[in-house]
């Protein structure tokens, strides 16, 4: 019926309707007379149509519509005048059952029924808009009865756009009205609409996935209904049991998900999550997120019955059949995409019930005996893009501070206390009162080798930094001074502590009691260990990096001068996994490869570990930041890994010349990045931020990523690991360590250094050293703040 939209009839109708509008100021009596007169004329035609046999002609309809337009104008005038006694027209309209008559006649007009339907929708809308006490209209039988009949007649109909617009507008108005006056809700459950049927809602359902204004208004109206359902059992049971809205919404998600790009052309090595800019530039993703956020809102406001059903359908209609397979497939590029999507979804939803469904799906659901989370954990190994997005996903997961997730990842293993020596168990809760751990951490700082006489290669590259500038740069910290690290740590610990307020257990070695925890070396654990090892080996053998992180290779490598000092855990991965869990073990193992990881991977990795170190639960805290606790020999503690890293970094840097200059340069490079990042955050919508170029076979990505950007607007964390993980185009490539370009010019205070490809390994290690140093400060600040924020201070025995 779309032809009506542009039909000449309508154009002519409009024209006539507006030209002959009555004068603005006229006395009520004259208006009333005019109103009656117009109705008389319309009624004559209606009677003729009803009585006649030949049906309505176009002229008949035009005439009726014209009269109705006049009547509406008069009604508006009357209602706007606002006198209480002078509602002659409205009273006449109701007492003569004019709305009923119109409805009856419109059903007889055949081809033209939509024109009359539109007029009626306009009349109701006008009345609801202008009537001073709209809710009282609902109690008027001559108003409500035809309204319900009209709405009921609209069910399962397809309408042209103008009618759709009017219909949704009217439904929205009704919902607003009912929200303000929920006591009238029962009026809409009548026999005439079918038993227990809430006609407003049924009409809205087909529009929930609509784009544009109509869809928006329909979703708004539906949310109002959902809110109403919270206090109205009849409505709740209608929505949950009779309407199909929950499956429609859930399968809608599946449909929209299937339209998302399966591959992203990621041009920046450091890209690891979707930024708001990315989302804006992917219309399908924007659309999907709108739908997901709508589901989130529905769960938030709806009656528990509706809520439960909604969650059920999201789980069985979306997560299990669609997201699960996408996360468990074999195409690596598509895995990167689906992992990044999942991370984005977790950031976009906030309703605890919906979050629970997502988290439960990740932690509990099996596919052929394999859980999603096991698969995800196994992807932490390696150096690929997949690893980056997976770390980013875990960062978001852990940032939710959900006990169940942390239990699964970490505490399930640590509650046994099998990672500490038996005699040390009592010390798990001990606080490090005199800053020893922080002192130890800071002492691990890389020793800058004494500057040797530089050879000619350095002078040929354009001179050296003046001693003055090198002096001033030596103590440049990436995060301001140490006080800034402390402030960041304090905020992060406080936020984490607050977010864990509802946790069931303390995880302090006593609650839950160590005996309650029992993790057997199950087959699935072993498989996981096996697979992760294979995957990490695979990524190594791909020749992506020249330095081999694996222990067998390392023996001959110049990277390790003192072989015995680097403890080898690789022979028995299983035991470590069982003791501290695969998640922590893989993270620390990945950390051991810091020198060969790309700086971006290191930023992600250190950021994730710092996030873990903000948790105050003694079991985790002691494993990460307690320097004096004695662990079982098979357990990798953060201190051990850091110590061995320091040794290898020192040894490596000692073998090279010009390291001091390179360190300064790297530091400056990272400081520049941070500044660019800060500027980018201040001006998020500058054109430079949008570096997104769509391509034919997928979607192209260049490096714009604001690490901690969150759609929920949570407080921005400015730790070096997260802050630095942003690379703007302006600085990109300047000190890009893995880019094998022959010579990249990098200018510092007029100093230019030609980068050579053979230098890239050294430069990567230098960047790593700078990052390592800064991260030590971050960890030390966390250690200090943990002690300072320790709340329960039981005085020692008096």
């Amino acid at each position: 019926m779309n032809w009506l939209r542009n039909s000449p009839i309508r154009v002519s109708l409009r024209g006539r309707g507006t030209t002959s509008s009555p004068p603005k100021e006229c006395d009520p009596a004259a208006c009333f007379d005019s109103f009656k007169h117009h109705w008389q004329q319309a009624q004559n035609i209606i009677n003729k149509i009803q009585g006649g046999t030949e049906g309505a002609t176009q002229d008949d309809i035009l005439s009726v519509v014209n009269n109705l337009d006049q009547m509406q104008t008069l009604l508006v005038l009357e209602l706007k005048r606002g006198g209480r006694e002078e509602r002659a027209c409205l009273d006449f309209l109701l007492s003569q059952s004019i709305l009923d008559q119109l409805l009856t006649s419109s059903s007889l007009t055949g081809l033209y029924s939509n024109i009359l339907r539109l007029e009626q929708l306009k009349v109701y809308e006008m009345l609801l808009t202008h009537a001073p006490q709209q809710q009282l209209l609902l109690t008027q039988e001559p108003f409500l009865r035809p309204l319900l009949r009209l709405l009921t007649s609209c069910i399962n109909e397809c309408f042209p756009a103008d009618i759709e617009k009017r219909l949704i507008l009217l439904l929205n108005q009704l919902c607003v009205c009912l929200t303000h006056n929920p006591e009238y809700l029962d009026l809409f459950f009548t026999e005439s609409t079918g038993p227990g049927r809430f006609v407003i809602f049924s009409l809205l359902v087909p529009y929930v996935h609509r784009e544009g204004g109509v869809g928006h208004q329909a979703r708004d109206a539906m949310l109002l209904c959902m809110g109403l359902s919270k206090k109205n059992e009849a409505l709740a049971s209608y929505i949950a049991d009779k309407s199909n809205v929950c499956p429609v919404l859930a399968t809608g998600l599946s449909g929209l998900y299937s339209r998302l790009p399966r591959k992203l052309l990621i041009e920046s090595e450091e890209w690891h999550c979707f930024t708001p800019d990315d989302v804006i530039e992917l219309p399908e993703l924007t659309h999907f997120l709108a739908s997901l956020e709508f589901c989130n809102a529905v769960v938030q406001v709806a009656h528990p019955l509706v809520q439960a059903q909604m969650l059920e359908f999201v789980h069985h209609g979306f997560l299990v059949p669609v997201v699960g397979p996408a996360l468990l497939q074999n195409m690596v590029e598509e895995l990167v995409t689906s992992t990044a999507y999942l991370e984005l979804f977790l950031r976009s939803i906030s309703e605890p019930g919906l979050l629970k469904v997502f988290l439960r799906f990740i932690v509990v659901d099996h596919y052929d005996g394999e859980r999603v989370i096991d698969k995800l954990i196994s992807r932490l190994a390696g150096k690929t893009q997949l690893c980056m997005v997976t770390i980013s996903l875990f960062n978001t997961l852990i940032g939710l501070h959900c006990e169940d997730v942390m239990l699964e990842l970490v505490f399930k293993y640590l509650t046994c206390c099998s990672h500490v020596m038996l005699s040390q168990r009592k010390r798990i809760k001990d606080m490090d009162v005199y800053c020893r751990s922080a002192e130890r951490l800071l002492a691990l700082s890389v020793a800058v080798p004494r500057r040797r006489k530089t050879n000619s290669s350095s002078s040929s590259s354009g001179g050296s930094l003046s001693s003055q500038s090198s002096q001033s740069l030596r103590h440049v910290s990436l995060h301001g001074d140490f006080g800034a690290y402390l402030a960041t740590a304090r905020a992060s610990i406080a936020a984490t502590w607050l977010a864990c307020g509802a946790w069931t257990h303390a995880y302090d070695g006593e609650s839950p009691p160590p005996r309650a925890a029992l993790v057997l070396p199950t087959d699935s654990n072993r498989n996981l260990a096996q697979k992760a090892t294979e995957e990490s080996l695979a990524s190594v053998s791909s020749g992506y990096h020249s330095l081999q992180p694996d222990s067998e290779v390392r023996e001959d490598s110049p990277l390790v001068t003192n072989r015995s000092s680097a403890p080898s855990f690789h022979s028995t991965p299983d035991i470590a996994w069982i003791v501290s869990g695969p998640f922590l073990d893989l993270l620390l193992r990945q950390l051991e490869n810091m020198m060969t990881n790309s700086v971006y991977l290191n930023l992600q990795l250190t950021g994730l570990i710092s996030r873990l170190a903000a948790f105050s639960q003694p079991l985790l805290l002691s494993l990460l930041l307690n320097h004096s606790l004695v662990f079982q020999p098979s357990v990798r503690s953060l201190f051990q890994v850091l110590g061995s890293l320091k040794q290898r970094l020192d040894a490596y840097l000692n073998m090279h010349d010009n390291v001091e200059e390179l360190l300064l340069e790297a530091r400056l490079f990272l400081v520049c990045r941070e500044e660019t990042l800060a500027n980018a955050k201040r001006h998020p919508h500058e054109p430079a931020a949008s570096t997104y170029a769509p391509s034919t076979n997928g979607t192209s990505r260049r490096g714009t990523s604001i690490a901690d950007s969150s759609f929920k607007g949570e407080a921005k964390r400015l730790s070096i690991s997260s802050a630095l993980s942003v690379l703007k185009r302006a600085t990109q490539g300047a000190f890009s360590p893995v880019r094998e370009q022959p010579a990249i010019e990098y200018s510092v205070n007029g100093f230019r250094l030609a980068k050579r490809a053979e230098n890239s390994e050294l430069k990567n290690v230098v960047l790593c050293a700078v990052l390592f140093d800064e991260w030590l400060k971050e960890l030390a600040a966390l250690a200090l703040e943990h002690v300072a924020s320790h709340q329960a201070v039981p005085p020692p025995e008096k």
Partner: protein
Amino acid sequence: MPRSPPKRLAHSLAMDSSFSPIEEEEPEAVAEPLKRQGSVRKVLPATPGVPDPAKLVERTNSLPGIRSTSQYGPYFTEYSLLPEYNMLQGCAIPGVYCVPAANTPLMWFGVIFVRQGPYVGGVFRFNIVIPENFPDGGCPKVEFQSKLFHPQISPEGDFNIGRGFSEWNKNMHHIWQVVDYVRKSFLKIDPGQPVNEEAAKMYKMNHEKFMAEAKKCVSLSIQRIYDLSPTDDPHYISFEPFDSKTHESLREKIYSQESSSEDSRGLSWVASNSIKPFSVPISGVIQNSS
């Protein structure tokens, strides 16, 4: 009531209900676990990247010792003292209130309301002076500002802390113990190894006269209770007469603080008797009290 009180102190004072001279000015005891509010922390720059270089540099230069030779020395000192202060707050030693000075973490202002014994009713001021290389520099000193006639307090006001802590063992000793020791020394007079021989002798030989001297100290301390602050440190504990215009709103605030409990929020579906994720039965659908 304190004149320019750090919030914490106002709160602490509210807990003292037994001190008679200003009894009616004091709200009833509020037994709330104290929370750290960080008056010590003010020494650190509040905003990242905006350090207070003057202070840090000054202290860096003035601090000897191994720990303080590094640029982190001042931080370590401060963060070693923070737990000490937390512990002291946690103990809530009756009648004693301490606030670290705003200008240095190494000096804490204290005031003791004596509730029984010869000095009952006295309000005595003291400073705790902490060695710069704490916890290694020996026992903190306690210096009384109020004039006191006491066997363990020298005429100059120095408290004989060595009597209780002959050697400072950082693994066993904490500042809260020092404060508690000082409090107890007013309850039961110990004339052994005195630093005020006269007082010790009098205590043993002429008990009544000693008691009269003690009373003198008490009334003197009450007379001087509203004396102006001798220092410009904003954390100095000062008092002013109760004035409902100024203090009533503060008092109400203290009461309302007590009643407002913090929301516990967060995500957890772990059943209390379980260590399995999502073990809360479905009926208890969502645990989210926000």
